């Protein structure tokens, strides 16, 4: 019956075999191998983390922007502490006796046997003094770290900053330990994984007198730290610095792209802050100050502020009209200073009439685009406005509006392009017509776009129909590749031949004869053909925002730019001359008409300098 009884021998054999293997292993571990002997009870191992230097950041020309400076954290292991001379200790470190007691108490609470940070970021000078005396203080040792240093006070929003990890991060990613640093915004955050390198560890044998007696087990347990990868950003630091200079005393932003690559040449968000403010022990205090500033210097307007695009959006509606064949270059509309339809009136300014498409861009005629926009939506090709509206929305979104562009900034916003559901909710399913939506003809109303999206649209126009996703990093040193998407063309849904027509209009808007009605003559340059379009974003809270988009030169464009100046009024007043200076600076590296520069630099727009003194 029990024919498998013999199998018990095999089971017994396995048990004894494994027992023997374990006994042999233990014999080797405990008797033969000397690696693990820590005989004297006072000898202890100390795990000293080797923090790699964080990768450096350069600008597109290879100019250093961010580097590191050595700093030292004083660590304590409560279990190894012995009574010591606190007076001398406090003197060296410039701390109070109370701080010593509290910190040791805190360390004891955290762990009796593991090290905790006693004092953060001791300077090299203090460290030198302390090092000679360290033998007197068993239980203390110094851990080298690095702090970020900046070569200029510019580009804070691009570079971002580094801060200590919080518990949420530690829980999610076990690479990070209490007290470690992590990139919190900008390049520092997006490229954290490359910049941080890889931590290493040295295991030392330490004697009773707190002296390192050598590496443990010939360094077999050690792991070398890998230095972080250096990053070459796409920023042109001179242009960036110039942009920040121009935007001083103003609120708004400038985004400049290289159309042929999608590389960000400059990204200004004003007001900005000095990146040095968020480094080291002063960080916490300064952060609170910056947070409580009413002008929100930490807020990256270039990526997060959403404004209506204003008249710049007429270009898009013009292109859609051409593509949908409801508009031809020769189409003319009369304008008697306003657009009237039923009880609706959209005001315009005084200009000659009638205008064709090119002239309508040159003079920015509101009436013209109310007609174009209504023709797009009332196109007989579609069964109802619901379909034509969807089609219009697709076109708009193909320029990168109403969606995340997918830049390498983590905090970009996607802006707003309404859906038909938006109108259904307000007017009911059949309650809206093309006239209901007419404010979007001239870029007002329910549209929200970020300066980055506007610069990107400009690049798409400059490229005659496609854009590269804007990005801030050109190259990661070492064997790393940038994201594939930064090398892929994103095509708009407009055929490329239509672009030359609207570009003609943008050329005339800037370079038309004086008195011809051109709206953006303040962006005119003698030797470079700038193509641009002004805009004004309606602001229900005060003076309107001044917008200007442009690219240059007309053929083979080198730069596409969007300038926003909050409460600046018409686009031609402040935004256009600012863009003009930026373009000239980038293309020629000199300014031909210095008074334009003076004019912008001295302008103080809705900006109370007094209240911000403390941040300078």
């Amino acid at each position, binding site marked *: 019956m029990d*024919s*498998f*009884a013999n*199998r*018990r021998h*095999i*089971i*017994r054999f396995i*048990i*004894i075999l*494994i*027992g023997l*293997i*374990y*006994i042999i*292993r*233990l*014999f080797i*571990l*405990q*008797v033969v*191998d000397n*690696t*693990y*002997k*820590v*005989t004297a*009870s*006072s000898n*202890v*191992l100390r*795990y000293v*983390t080797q923090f790699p230097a964080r990768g450096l950041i350069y600008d597109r020309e290879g100019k250093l922007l961010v580097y590191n400076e050595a700093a030292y954290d004083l660590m304590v292991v409560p279990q190894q502490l012995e009574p010591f001379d606190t007076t001398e200790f406090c003197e060296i470190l410039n701390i109070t006796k109370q701080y010593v007691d509290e910190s040791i108490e805190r360390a004891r609470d955290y*762990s*009796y*046997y*593991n090290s905790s940070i006693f004092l953060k970021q001791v300077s090299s000078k203090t460290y030198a003094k302390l090092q000679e005396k360290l033998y007197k203080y068993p239980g203390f040792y110094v851990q080298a770290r690095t702090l970020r240093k900046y070569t200029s006070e510019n580009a804070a929003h691009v570079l971002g900053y580094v801060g200590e990890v919080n518990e949420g991060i530690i829980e999610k990613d*076990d690479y990070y*330990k209490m007290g470690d640093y992590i990139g919190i915004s900008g390049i520092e955050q997006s490229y954290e994984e490359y910049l941080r390198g890889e931590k290493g*560890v040295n*295991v030392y044998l330490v004697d009773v007198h707190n002296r390192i007696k050598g590496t443990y087990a010939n360094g077999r*347990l050690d*792991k070398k730290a890998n230095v972080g990868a250096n990053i070459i950003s796409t920023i042109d630091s001179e242009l960036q610095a110039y942009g920040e200079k121009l935007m001083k005393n103003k609120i708004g932003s400038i985004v400049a792209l290289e159309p042929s690559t999608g590389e960000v040449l400059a990204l200004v968000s004003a007001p900005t802050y000095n990146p040095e403010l968020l480094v080291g022990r002063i960080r916490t205090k300064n952060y609170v100050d910056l947070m409580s500033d009413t002008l929100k210097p930490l807020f990256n307007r270039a990526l997060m502020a959403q404004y209506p695009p204003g008249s710049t959006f007429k270009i898009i509606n013009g292109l859609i009209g051409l593509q949908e064949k409801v508009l031809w270059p020769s189409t003319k509309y009369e304008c008697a200073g306003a657009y009237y339809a039923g009880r609706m009136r959209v005001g315009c300014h005084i200009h000659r009439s009638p205008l064709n498409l090119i002239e309508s861009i040159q003079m920015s005629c509101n009436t013209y685009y109310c007609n174009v926009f209504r023709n797009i939506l009332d196109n007989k090709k579609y069964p109802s406005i619901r379909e034509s509206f969807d089609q219009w929305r697709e076109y708009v979104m193909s320029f990168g509006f109403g969606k995340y562009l997918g830049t390498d900034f983590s905090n970009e916003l996607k802006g707003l392009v309404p859906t038909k559901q938006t109108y259904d909710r307000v007017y009911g399913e059949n309650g809206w017509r093309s006239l209901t939506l007419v404010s979007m003809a001239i870029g007002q109303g329910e549209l929200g776009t970020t300066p980055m999206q506007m610069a990107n649209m400009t690049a798409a126009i400059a490229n005659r129909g496609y854009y590269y996703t804007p990005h801030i990093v050109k190259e990661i040193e070492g064997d790393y590749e940038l994201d594939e998407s930064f090398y892929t063309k994103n095509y708009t849904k407009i055929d490329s031949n239509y672009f030359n027509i609207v570009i003609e209009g943008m050329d005339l808007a800037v370079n038309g004869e004086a008195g011809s009605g051109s709206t953006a003559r303040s962006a005119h340059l003698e030797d470079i053909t700038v193509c641009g379009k002004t805009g004004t974003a309606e602001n229900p809270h005060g003076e309107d925002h001044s917008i200007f988009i442009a690219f240059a030169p007309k053929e083979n464009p080198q730069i596409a730019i969007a300038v926003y100046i909050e409460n600046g009024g018409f686009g031609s007043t402040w935004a256009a001359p600012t863009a003009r200076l930026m373009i000239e600076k980038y293309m020629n590296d000199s300014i031909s008409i210095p008074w334009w520069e003076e004019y912008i630099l001295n302008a103080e727009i809705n900006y109370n300098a007094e209240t911000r003194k403390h941040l300078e």
Partner: protein
Amino acid sequence: MQRRVNIWSNIDWLTVTMYLVLVMLGWINIYAAVYNEDHQSIFDLSQRYGKQLIWIGAAIVIAFIVFVIDINFYSYFAYLVYGIMIFLLIAVLIFGLEVHGAKSWFVIGNIRIQPAEFAKIATALALARYLSSYNVQINTFKSYVRIAAIIFTPALLILLQNDTGSALVYFVFLIVLYREGISESILLLGFFVVVLFILALVLEKITIILLSIGVVFIIFGFLNKKLKHVGVGLGILLLSSATLYALNKLLSLGLSYYYIILAALGVSAIFYIIFSIRYKIRNVILLLIFLLGSIFITYSVDYVFNNFLEDHQQKRINVLLGLESDPYGVEYNVNQSKIAIGSGGLTGKGFLRGTQTKFDFVPEQSTDFIFCTIGEEWGFMGTFFVILVFIFFLYRLIGIAERQRSTFSRIYGYGVVSVLFFHIVINIGMTIGLMPVIGIPLPFFSYGGSSLWAFTILLFILLRLDASRLELLR
């Protein structure tokens, strides 16, 4: 037919003595592990060692109760107990408390109970009941399915609690099945899958396919005992490989060696099948299926590894296999554990003299890593002694299981042996770096009421059955 015998005089006192020795050793080592100068008394109830004494006292009472219950209870109510345990395992998923990421604790007042610990007993009982049932044939498909259901239902529920270690324990019931006559080929197959899984993580795919081909040809040689067949088979494979290699070069297809061999294998397989049918050569198709299976497994390993295991589990396996270094995480624990044990030397540092095994250096010092304290303070003498006691203990339990007259008792006995064996091997193995870090307790040693009580009940049911073994006449 049954007769009454005095169960107290038939208790296997040797086993009971060993049990008490192990439990006492455990208590002393918990004292040493969490020794706190402010609470020097080993009876201090505010400390773990004081509490462990309470758990031990309770365990002895429980053992006594186990003995008072009628012997027939265990087999009659095996399924009921099993059903209740399954219910509790589901309940803990809903109402349980989460500790260290595993939702496996019930809280009643200030007592925390882990049903997973007790589910092993119920599973051992249910398995014994099923296998000992009249007219159950172990090697039928129906039985395989039912056995798998009995064993893996609790394992799956425990896995859902996120307690992988306790879930893995259930694989050890294979030992019971082996003793009860499950076909060797099933075990061999299982063994191959495990070996392939590990190899697939360590070696390149091409190495594995070459190894598998070698193994298959060797097996083929052994089975057929005709060198000529092996030679022809190898010839076909070499020829087709060479042809495909040349083609690849000529047409510059840029295929890697792996795919060339794979394709050659496909081409050769056609010839093999034709030859095997024409000349009536046996086992060819079976071996081809085996080869195909191993290729499939090497492919699926990456998928399973990346999709079914969590990050920390992948890490533990990688660290053990030496594929990844993690000096602050898993490796830190294992290193500290090895340092603690290794620093003990031949004779150890002496009771309460351990420096490495105080709580912060080695984690979970009083629970999962209690073996470190033994190693550090008692040295090789101590660890040798403990392992010897464990071996002798298991040996003795096998003896007890084998002398049972009822099949139910014997199978249950092997269940006890298997569960204890698994815990001992994995727990000690992880402290000396031979096994991955899986958080399961060392039987009778580790701090904790649930595990101590569960092991006590597990053991004493066997001793209870054993004490009455003479009641059954046959």
